[in-house]
């Protein structure tokens, strides 16, 4: 087999393509205009780099006062370049650098900005015939613009939430009161239509309330009012109030409260919100003839609430997604009940604010078990986005 030989000065096959890929990867992380600088004797290398940079979509730009050195060239060593740029501790000034890669190129990125002549000196010192130098000023400007755009988007989102929650509540309340004032005798023929209207107003009200809660979470105005809280009492109140729904849906609802459970320091209103959400969800998704079992247990450092149902279960991919905003799972409710997709997201945030935890264990077709652990000494942190 003939031995392969390499002519001095010729680039290895595929190098240009490899360099293009390397530069494309880099420009995704650090967009900006590039100066292509050539040292004496490096014209051929400069042409290669220029072609690679152009193929990667880089634009050439003008010189600015300071530059972030991105030296790409054969034989460049990170520590050498950093030291030449003025750093006494080579690794202290290098953000990243690589040894020669498969393309024969090295990539060096300096931590600090430098005047162009310093960068060129660094290139010279490491015998880099040609290199690319990134204008930091432009990168900073792009970052500033991106931040400004993001701030605008956040302000728009806040304004939208404000309209969708506060401004929708007033007409909704009026509609709800008006519907309540219609006497059944007056509208026997329209009873079905009235029921549809009532259900939809209730649905809208639930959605608006949930959105308002999410808005408070985003704005950081979702505060906890910590007080001695009787979790067992909250659980019992919720379960008892849902007994009529369970009987109507022909679901067996059972509860067993651990008498050892002590009062905890928590926000009772928010704990009630979590309990109500989990228990109501279990009823929503359990079919006729099914079972919902609610239990509490004292764990020494807090209370564990367990709500098990014989519903359709949750596929593994959705077991975390359901705790995200608008992260509804694919399962359908069994009695036409509505779900905003915000309830469990709010629950998780409430639990986190208390220093607690909420999670689900489920197997499709085998039902779901939701757990919520309320620590005995809840935090007093405020919610934020």
């Amino acid at each position: 087999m003939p031995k392969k030989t390499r002519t001095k000065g010729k680039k290895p096959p595929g190098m240009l393509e490899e360099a293009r890929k390397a530069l494309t990867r880099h420009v995704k992380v650090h967009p900006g205009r590039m100066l292509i600088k050539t040292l004496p004797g490096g014209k051929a290398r400069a042409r290669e780099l220029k072609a690679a940079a152009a193929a990667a979509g880089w634009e050439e730009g003008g010189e600015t006062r300071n530059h972030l050195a991105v030296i790409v060239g054969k034989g460049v060593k990170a520590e050498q370049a950093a030291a030449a740029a003025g750093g006494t501790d080579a690794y202290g000034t290098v953000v990243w650098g690589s040894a020669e890669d498969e393309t024969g190129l090295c990539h060096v990125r300096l931590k600090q900005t430098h005047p162009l002549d310093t960068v060129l000196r660094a290139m010279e010192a490491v015998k880099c015939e040609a290199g690319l130098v990134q204008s930091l000023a432009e990168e900073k400007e792009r970052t500033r613009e991106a931040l400004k755009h993001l701030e605008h988007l956040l302000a728009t989102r806040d304004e939208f939430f404000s309209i969708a929650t506060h401004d929708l509540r007033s007409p909704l309340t009026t509609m709800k009161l008006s519907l309540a004032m219609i006497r059944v005798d007056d509208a026997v023929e329209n009873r079905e239509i009235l029921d549809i209207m009532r259900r939809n107003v209730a649905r809208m009200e639930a959605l608006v309330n949930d959105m308002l809660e999410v808005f408070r979470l985003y704005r950081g105005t979702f505060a906890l009012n910590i007080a001695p809280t009787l979790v067992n009492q909250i659980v019992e109140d919720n379960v008892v109030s849902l007994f009529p729904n369970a009987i109507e849906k022909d679901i067996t609802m059972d509860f067993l409260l651990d008498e050892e459970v002590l009062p905890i320091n928590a926000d009772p209103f928010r704990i009630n919100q979590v309990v109500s959400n989990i228990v109501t969800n279990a009823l929503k998704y359990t079919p006729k003839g099914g079972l919902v079992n609610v239990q509490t247990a004292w764990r020494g450092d807090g209370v564990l609430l367990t709500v098990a149902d014989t519903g359709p279960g949750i596929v593994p991919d959705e077991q975390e997604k359901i705790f995200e905003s608008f992260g509804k799972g694919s399962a359908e409710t069994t009695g036409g009940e509505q779900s905003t997709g915000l309830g469990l997201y709010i629950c998780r945030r409430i639990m986190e604010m208390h220093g607690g935890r909420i999670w689900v264990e489920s197997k499709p077709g085998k039902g779901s078990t939701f757990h919520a652990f309320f620590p005995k000494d809840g935090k007093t942190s405020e919610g934020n986005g």
Partner: protein
Amino acid sequence: MEFSTGKTDGIIVLKLGGAVRAGDNDALQDALGSDDIRKSKAVIIDLSDLEYLNSRAIGTLMSLWKETTSSGRKIHIVNPKPLVERLLKAVGMYTLVPVSRSVEDAAAALSKGE
């Protein structure tokens, strides 16, 4: 769950005790569907020793109430404990079924046609 039946003044007295949980529901349903109860002119349900009953058990009692009253017969509840009382109130049973303090009071009320 504990369950027994007896008679006082010719009225069936159904006594429930302990707790009615998911595993007891079928047994309760069978017991309430017995011929003695179905043919009795009145039924007294003594809940004084019952600590707890689940939603299905309440549904079973409601079915018994519907069946009894629809055939012109009477039904009384006796002395439920606080939690049981709360559960019966939550589903509206307290407004439908007369509640007495003792079996004797219930029997006396039933004999007067109340």
